[in-house]
C-alpha cells in the first residue's frame, strides 16, 4: 500500500514522455495585459473591472467571449463571401459597350491574355487568401470545441502556427479593393472608357474587415488551456489505471 503511494507521487512530479509543462500565468493568477504586456496579479476571484496598473486597459483572463465572437464573425464573412464572388467588382463602359467583371472573370481574363503574374497575384489575394482564412478559422474553432470535450488532441503547436498564418495574411486580401478604387479613379476618360466599382467591391471589403476582426477576437491561449486540461485528465486516468492494476496484482499475491 505504501509503495503504491510513492509511485503515484512520482507520476505527478515528473512529466511523462515528451509532454511539455511550462509555468503559465493562469496558474499563478497573473493577468497579462493585452495592450502593454504587463503581468498583473489577480486581485479578486472574478476578474471583472480590474485594470492594468501600467496602461489602464481593462484586464481579462482570456479575450471575452472569444470563441462566440469569432464564430459569429466567421459566419457573417462566409455569407458575404458569396456576393463578393458573384456580384461584379468592376463595370467597364467603353465604345464596345458595358462589360461586368467578377473577381474570377478578371483572373481568367488576365491568365488568357498572358499576364500570368497579375493573374496569380489577384487569384492569391482575392480568392485563395480569404478562403484560406475562413477555412483555418473554422478549423481552429472546431478543433478547440472538440478538444474541450473529448480526448482527441490536435497538436497545439500546429494550431498556433495556423493562427499566426491567419494573422499574417489577413491584410493582404485588401489588394483588390485598392486596385478597383484606383482603376475607377484613373479611368474616367469621358466618351472613351469609364470604369466603375461594382457592388462586389463593397461585399469583398466587408469580408476582409470581418475576417480581420474574427482573427483579432480569437484567443490562441484557449488552445493551450484545453491542451493542458486534457493532459492533466489523462494523467489522472493513467494514475487511476496503474493503481487498480497494482491493486489487482496485490490481491493475486
Amino acid at each position, binding site marked *: 500500500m505504501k509503495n503504491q503511494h510513492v509511485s503515484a507521487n512520482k507520476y505527478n512530479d515528473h512529466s511523462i514522455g515528451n509532454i511539455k509543462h511550462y509555468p503559465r500565468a493562469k496558474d499563478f493568477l497573473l493577468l497579462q495585459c493585452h495592450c502593454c504586456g504587463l503581468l498583473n496579479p489577480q486581485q479578486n476571484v472574478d476578474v471583472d473591472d480590474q485594470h492594468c496598473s501600467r496602461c489602464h486597459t481593462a484586464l481579462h483572463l482570456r479575450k471575452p467571449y472569444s470563441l462566440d465572437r469569432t464564430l459569429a464573425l466567421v459566419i457573417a464573412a462566409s455569407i458575404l463571401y458569396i456576393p463578393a464572388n458573384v456580384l461584379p467588382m468592376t463595370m467597364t463602359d467603353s465604345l464596345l459597350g458595358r462589360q461586368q467583371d467578377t473577381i474570377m472573370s478578371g483572373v481568367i481574363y488576365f491568365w488568357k491574355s498572358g499576364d500570368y503574374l497579375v493573374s496569380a497575384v489577384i487569384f492569391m489575394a482575392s480568392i485563395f487568401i480569404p478562403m484560406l482564412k475562413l477555412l483555418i478559422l473554422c478549423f481552429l474553432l472546431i478543433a478547440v470545441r472538440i478538444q474541450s470535450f473529448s480526448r482527441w488532441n490536435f497538436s497545439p503547436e500546429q494550431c*498556433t502556427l495556423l493562427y499566426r498564418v491567419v494573422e499574417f495574411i489577413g491584410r493582404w486580401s485588401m489588394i483588390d479593393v485598392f486596385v478597383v478604387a484606383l482603376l475607377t479613379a*484613373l479611368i474616367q476618360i469621358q466618351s472613351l472608357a469609364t470604369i466603375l466599382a461594382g457592388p462586389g467591391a463593397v461585399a469583398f471589403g466587408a469580408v476582409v474587415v470581418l475576417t480581420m476582426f474574427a482573427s483579432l477576437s480569437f484567443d490562441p491561449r484557449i488552445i493551450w488551456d484545453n491542451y493542458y486540461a486534457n493532459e492533466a485528465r489523462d494523467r489522472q486516468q493513467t494514475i487511476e489505471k496503474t493503481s487498480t492494476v497494482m491493486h489487482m496484482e496485490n490481491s493475486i499475491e
Partner: protein
Amino acid sequence: MSQLTSEQRSELLKNKDLHLFGEDLSQSELVGCEECDTIYRRVDLAAGERAYCECCGAELYRQPKSFTSLLALVITAFIIFVIANSFPIVKVELQGNFSQTTLLGAAWTMFQIDRAFVGILILITTFIVPLIDLMLLMYVLTSIGIFKTRPKFLRLTLRVLFLFRVWGMVEVFLIGVLVTLVKLVGMVIVIPGIALWAFGILSILLVYISSVKIKDIWDEIDRCLS
C-alpha cells in the same frame, strides 16, 4: 500544477507578493507569452536581439532601437507621407486624354459613385491610421527621447496606437498600385508619378516602425523614466 484547487487559489490570492521560480520577483522582471500564456523571467538583451517563447515559438519581446533614432525614422516617414499624398501616384494617357489620381482622389471618387464603404475603408487604412500613428509616435518619442518627461496623455496615446496598429495597410496599397499599373499597361500609356516612389519608401519605413511593438515601447519607457 495546471489544476489548482480552490484552496490553493485563495491562498495565492491572499499572498500579494510574487513568488515564482523559487524567488521573489517584481512585475517588471516577468514576461508572459501572448499566445500560450507561459511565463518567463526577463533577461537583458543586446540591441537587435529578440526573445522567443520556448513553448510555442512566438516572439516575447525585443530590445528596440533608442527612442531618438526611432524618432528620426518617424519624422522621415512623416515627411514622405506628406509627399506621397500631395502628388499624383500615376498618370494615364489614352488618345490625347490625360487622367491622374492621388490617394485621396481615389477615395473621393468612391464617395462620388456611391461606394462610400469602400471609400471609408481606403481612407482609414491608408490615410487616417498611418497619419495618426506617425503623429502620436512623434508626440510620445519626442517627449520621452528628447525632453525625458512623461507625456500627459501617455496612456491614452499608447492605447490608441495599439488599437490602430493592425489597420495601417500602406504596404498592401503599394502592391495594389503596382497591380493596377500592370493591368493598365496594355490599355493606356502609364506614367508613374513622384508619389509612387514616395509610397515605396514609406511602406519600407512603416513596416520597420510597426515592427516595434507597443509593449516594447512601454518597457523602454519604464526603463528610461525610472
